[in-house]
Structure formats: C-alpha cells, structure tokens
C-alpha cells in the first residue's frame, strides 16, 4: 500500500494511519521515515511526487 503526496509538495500521508508526514526538504530515494502518529517505519519509494510505503521489516539470516 502506498500513498501520494498531499497538497504540500514536501508532505505525504502515512499509509498506515493517514497521519501527516512532513519533510524539511525533498527526501532521498529509499529514505526511511517514522510516522510520528503511529510509529510505522515508512520507505520513500518515489521522491517527486513523494510516495511512501510501509518499510519491509529487517530479517535475520544465517551465514555470510
């Protein structure tokens, strides 16, 4: 699930709780942001317009 930016160029809504996510400047590709409302970790999957998606969880893996 992903969301489009809202009216402000540097704002987006959280795909989990629809809370407002504001960036001070254009985010970097792949940047991880945390929703201040629900705490979800979100990944920037598009910079312009800003699109966010729930970031995949880190997995443990055996080996090198």
């Amino acid at each position, binding site marked *: 699930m992903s969301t489009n930016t809202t009216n402000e160029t540097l704002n987006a809504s959280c795909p989990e709780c629809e809370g407002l996510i504001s960036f001070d400047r254009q985010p970097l590709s*792949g940047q991880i942001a945390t929703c201040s409302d629900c705490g979800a970790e979100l990944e920037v999957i598009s910079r312009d317009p800003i699109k966010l998606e729930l970031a*995949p969880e*880190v997995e*443990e*893996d055996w*080996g*090198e």
Partner: protein
Amino acid sequence: MNSTAPLPAARVSRETGVAILRDLVATKSLTGQEQDAVAVFVEHAAAIGFDAHTDEVGNGIASRQGEGPVTLDIALVGHIDTVPGDIPVRIEDNILHGRGSVDAKGPLAAFLLGAAEADLPPGVRVRVAAALGEEEDSPGAQHLRDTWRPDACFIGEPSGWDGVTLGYKGRLVVEVEVTTPSGHSAGEDRSAPDIALAWWRDAMVLLDRLNAERETTFDTFDSIHATITGMGSESDGLTDTARMTCSFRVPEWITPEGLGPELRALVREDDRVTLALGGFEPAHRSDRNDACVRALTAAVRSQGVRPHPKLKTGTCDMNVVARTWQCPIAAYGPGDSGLDHSPIEQLDLDEYARSIRVVREAIERLAQEMVVARDSAPS
C-alpha cells in the same frame, strides 16, 4: 595496464556474464591458493573495459572511472577464495553448480558486470576487488582497509538478489589448551578434556547471563552465541593435552576485546588452562538510511519487487573494513547463503542476471546522489 582514460560503460551480453562466472567458479581458489582465479578475474575484467591488475598482496583489482580526476570513490569488495569441497562445475536447467558459486564468486562476478555497465558521472571511480582469504583471516581485505579510503562501499556476499544486508555479527576465536600430568582415568584428578569442558560450561553460563541483561530486538543478531569448532586431546605418557577451538559470535553491544577478559576470568588459578584470543572482528550494522543501503533498496525496487533488508549472523569482510573506513556500506549479492559451504552450492543464473542489473543501478543511483552532495557542499 595503467590507462586511466575514462571508459564508456560496457554492455556485456548475458552469455559473456555467465562465461565469466563459470570461469571463476571452475578455477579452484582455496584460501591461500587464489592466484589462478585472480588471474582469471583480471583477464576478464580487462576484456570488458576495466583497468585491471593484481595488487601488492595478490588481490585482483578492476577499476574504471568517469571523466576527469577522481573526486568520489566507490569500492566493491568481493572475495575470491572458497572453502574446500569439490563440486563438479556444470550448468543444468539454468543452474550453475560449483564451489564458490554463492560464496562468493556469484556476488563478485555480479559486482564486476554491474560496475562494467554503470554509467559514471565525471570524477566518480568504481573499483572492484577480488579479495584474498576472506574464509580465514582476510589478508586481502586487511590490505584494502589499510590502503584505500573509499567514499562508499558495497561488500559482495550472498543476500539473495532481492535482499540487502545491513550488517554482520562480530567474532572472537578462542583457542583453549589444557595440560595436566598424565594419570589413570579411574583416578580422582580431572582430565585435561574435563577441565577444558568445565571452562566451556562456565563460558555458556556467562553468555546466558550477559544475554539476559540485554533487551534484544533480534534473537540471534543481538545475542552472543558460541560454538566449539574443533577439539581433541593427546598424551605422551607424561603430559595430557586437550585443545579446543571456540568461535564466539558477538553483537554490537559487546566488542571482541570486551568479551575476551570475561572469558579469561573464568580460568581458575589451579587449572592449567591457556587461552589464545584471535579473530577480533567487531559487529557492524549500517543504518537503514545509509546511502549504500538506500541505493541497493531502490535498485531492487526498480526491478518490481519488495526488497528484503537483512542482518546476518555470520562475519565477513564488512567487519574488517567498516570501522576504519567509516563510510556508507552495505552487502549484496545473488544466491542463498544457506548454501554457503554446503555440498549442494549452486546459483540460479536468472537470479545472477537480475543481481547484475541491481548492482548497476545501485552504483548509478549512489554516484548521482554523491555527486549532487559533492557539488552542493560549501567550498
């Protein structure tokens, strides 16, 4: 070859990419005996447009750069040595079978092909290293650590083509030796193996206590684990000797240097125990906003799939270079690390092809971002 002239990105056919990988896998390169495989690496690298050579310690190095003097340096560090185990090299049903296909010639070849195909902005250099000895004490990566200062680094280890490895646990190797006067096994005195195993049991109690004192997010990555990797005993009729090699995998919250004294403190005064500590490699975990992690993550996404960020319970050359280089760093490569060191080591060639595209795009994304940061920095 010493040419530093900018070279256009090569477009390497799938057949050539597979041939390079197959040649690397087919050339045996046990740790300490990597020269022939390094020569194959250098020869293929030169043929697809790199400035390629063997460095002072024997690492294979392949380099290319955008126009002008180098202002940004991206290192891609793979390793060319393998553990023992002859697996007949063959391609069946688009699967390459062979020792090193996963750990780690597949990742190394993907680095070479991806770097060959990447468009490089002016001032950006990529250097692919086929490092020696990763399966033991990493002399190749140690040399790179001491002589290179890259601005960013990718480490070539299997993450799966859609995975991105953020970090590895650290390591401490402990060689235990116990000597006692020989005696009858029916006697009251503890034997040398008894004493060695008593120390081991105490070490396990220590680890349980240290782990219990920590709140952990990941069961394995955030805990100390240990295993006995070798043991034996002998007697010359006068003295009995027991030896045991123990590998301690350490998380970020304790360094190998910090754990060592705790293990030494378990030795009782009346025991004839000596501990030799080695293999000091601290754990390393990159932040998810690390530039290399993001570049790989975005490159995987561009292939239409959801990336899998991973933390590994093993140790690799990331542990050797990360603390010194202090630059963005992440590990990547095709293959299932569950097949590392196994008798069925094999790599899907479609996965290999996808990983080459990911490496190429990750380099281009990272280079572009670094150039923007460089050019916008106050002079």
